């Protein structure tokens, strides 16, 4: 029952109907990972956490005197301790991310945005700083990592405004961004990584450093692995103007082999730079990606 409920909450078919990414993130995180946000450190920070009885001998500054004035009771305010953890979300918004197969409930970009919103919410609940870098042919969003609810709202709003357009310029964009990355960050890169198995791993060499973690989540549509149905189709490239007429029936087997080999190469190349890689499909529930992210997070915090 719980699993069914959890699956429903993580099912992109349902989640894609929630337009408010902030709400979506809360639904997913609070609904499916209830214990996560409780694992917080209490201490000095800017985000109020809770009241507790005042222990004599503690710093008087932590007493909430307004409460005392009302109730003549000494209570201490505790704050969520800010972590030193930076979550840097990098989202590919090139035209290929707009693909949505016949049976898919959302486009790849929408799926990636939902995941990114969930990650952002998780980070916010845990007191991490969250930043966003979204690019395609040009930079669409660049938000430096910060913490707090207001900033979280800004990030999810930015995610909601992303549009898939243009040809990807991985090299130029990453060159622009890497130099401005905050220290000690976890970079979550959401993209389809098409035709970039050689280019991108090079740009993620920073992951070799102990200060950085990189999680590369490949977002694909099922049809990108199995090809659309049909006897004869004229395929038109989304990031170019090439066209190829072919019969998917005829080339399907060979295409799958090529895609599998491509993913293997991608994983291997990311692995060589210590970046974690996971391939996702848009009809998969978000839980797997979330668990993957949490695992990385836990390693960093721990």
């Amino acid at each position: 029952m719980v699993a069914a409920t959890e699956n429903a909450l993580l099912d992109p078919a349902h989640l894609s109907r929630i337009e408010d990414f902030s709400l979506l993130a809360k639904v997913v995180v609070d609904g499916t990972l209830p214990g996560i946000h409780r694992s917080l450190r209490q201490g000095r920070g800017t985000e109020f956490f809770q009241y507790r009885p005042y222990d004599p001998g503690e710093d008087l500054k932590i007493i909430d005197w307004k409460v005392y004035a009302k109730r003549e009771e000494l209570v201490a305010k505790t704050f969520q301790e800010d972590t030193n953890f930076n979550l840097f979300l990098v989202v590919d918004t090139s035209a290929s991310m707009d693909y949505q197969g016949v049976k898919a409930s959302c486009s790849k970009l929408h799926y990636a945005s939902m995941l990114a919103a969930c990650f952002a919410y998780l980070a916010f609940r845990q007191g991490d700083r969250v930043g966003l870098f979204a690019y395609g042919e040009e930079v669409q969003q660049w938000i430096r990592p910060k913490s707090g609810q207001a900033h979280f709202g800004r990030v999810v709003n930015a995610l909601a405004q992303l549009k898939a357009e243009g040809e990807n310029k991985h090299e130029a964009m990453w060159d622009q961004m890497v130099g401005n990355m905050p220290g000690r960050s976890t970079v979550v890169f959401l993209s389809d990584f098409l035709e970039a198995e050689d280019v991108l791993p090079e740009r993620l060499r920073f992951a070799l450093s102990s200060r950085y973690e990189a999680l590369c989540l490949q977002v694909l549509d099922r049809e990108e692995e199995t090809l659309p149905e049909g006897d004869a189709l004229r395929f038109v490239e989304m990031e170019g103007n090439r066209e190829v007429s072919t019969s998917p029936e005829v080339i399907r087997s060979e295409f799958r082999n090529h895609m599998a080999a491509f993913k293997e190469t991608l994983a291997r190349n990311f692995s060589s730079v210590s970046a974690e890689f996971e391939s996702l499909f848009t009809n998969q529930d978000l839980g797997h990606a979330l668990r993957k992210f949490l695992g990385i997070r836990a390693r960093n915090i721990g």
Partner: protein
Amino acid sequence: MIEFGQPAALWTGLAIGLPILAHMAYRRITERHAFPSLRYIKPSQIPRTGRKTPADLLLLLLRMLIFLVVMILLADPYWSGPELPDKTASGKELVIAVDTSPSMGGWNGMGEAREIANKLIQSTEDKTSVVSFGKKALEEWEAGYDRDTLLKKVTNLNHGWRRGDAQVLAERAGGLFGENSGKKKLVVISDFQRSDWQSVSLNLQQQGVEVEMIRVGVGNETASRFDNRSIVESKVVPAGPGKVRIWTVVRNWSEKKKTDSLQLVIGGEIKDEQKITVAGLSSKQAQFIVPSNEVSQAMIRLANDDPMQLDNQRTVWLKAPPPKYFGFWHDTTSDEQTRSEKNFLGTAVESAGDSGWNRWEEKEDNANELRMGNDDSKLELLLVLGLGNWFETEGLEESFSTFLKKGGVAMITPAEIFSETASVIRNLEWMRFSFTRDEITFENSLTTFAFSNRSCLATARGLLSEKVTLRSPCGRSLPTPIT
């Protein structure tokens, strides 16, 4: 049986394989599909769809049908008649040639021709064919048609309305017979109108063809016009202000009394109709009153079924014709006598008309134009007053001659001194004449001459003779017109 004029075109039927091949080779039209990456999308042959919808089969059948129709049309199909016996077989052949020119419509020529042709067809044992000529073409009914068919075709023969040309028959006659036929005979049934036959040479003896000519359409009037009624005359006369009377005479050529319908047709519509009963071999008048200012032409038609229809209608003009013009020539030195004579004669000529249908109008300009040498001057009557030396001096003889040659009528009055007139006439050699003076006493100082029929021995020669009238200025009786 259907046959083809261009049988070679049937080979185009092989093209029917094209739609069949297209049907077999049909490949689905590809649908456009946007895809993130074409890196691993390789072109491949679009498979022939194995599934054919009913629409595809119907389309195939339609294409095949279109090809078949085009093939048949290119082959020029036609329906051939019953097979004819071998034209080259030996035996006697008779060709009956019937004239169908317009003249055969008169004097029952066509009726006689049919009768004679029918008798020939029924009586002969030879292979018989019938041709008709006279409409610039030769219509043939070849030997081999059964007798009844030939008889029926002859019965339906009728004359045409275009000028006949028997030369067509003359040129084609030899080819009407089979090559190996034994005895060949051509019977020509015609009225042999000179206009149709005058330049035709029908010499077929060299080709071994016997020719017999049977003339029709020349019987006596009564016999030929049996049962015929005709409009023999039709005139239009004034009938009061804005009206005219169409006066018609209908003759009944048969011996029995006949009643027909006489129609007034204007603008293709029957405007009036009346029954007219005419006793045998007699005539009767009929009239129609018509407003003259509304229409200009009408047709009087005798509606009946008599065998000769050509004389059953007449077309008449309802509006008054333009007036006829007359003018004067005289010596330019106008004296009182000339003016008086001019006034008198001008009044006389104008009053000769009826101020309606037949009108005379003096046109001095036209007379002067003619005097200046304009041969196209519209003048019907020229009055030359006091013909004298001035006529020769001005050199008017040529204009005068041309005027008369074109059908103009001239009236000459002698000059005061008649010898001048006589001298001019003699010099110009218009006529030879002599005259004797009458017993009438000279009435006044003017010399006048009276002519009487008995005494005038005028004769004329040349083209001018019938156009010249000599009249005394005092209005005495004229000599008989000179012819």
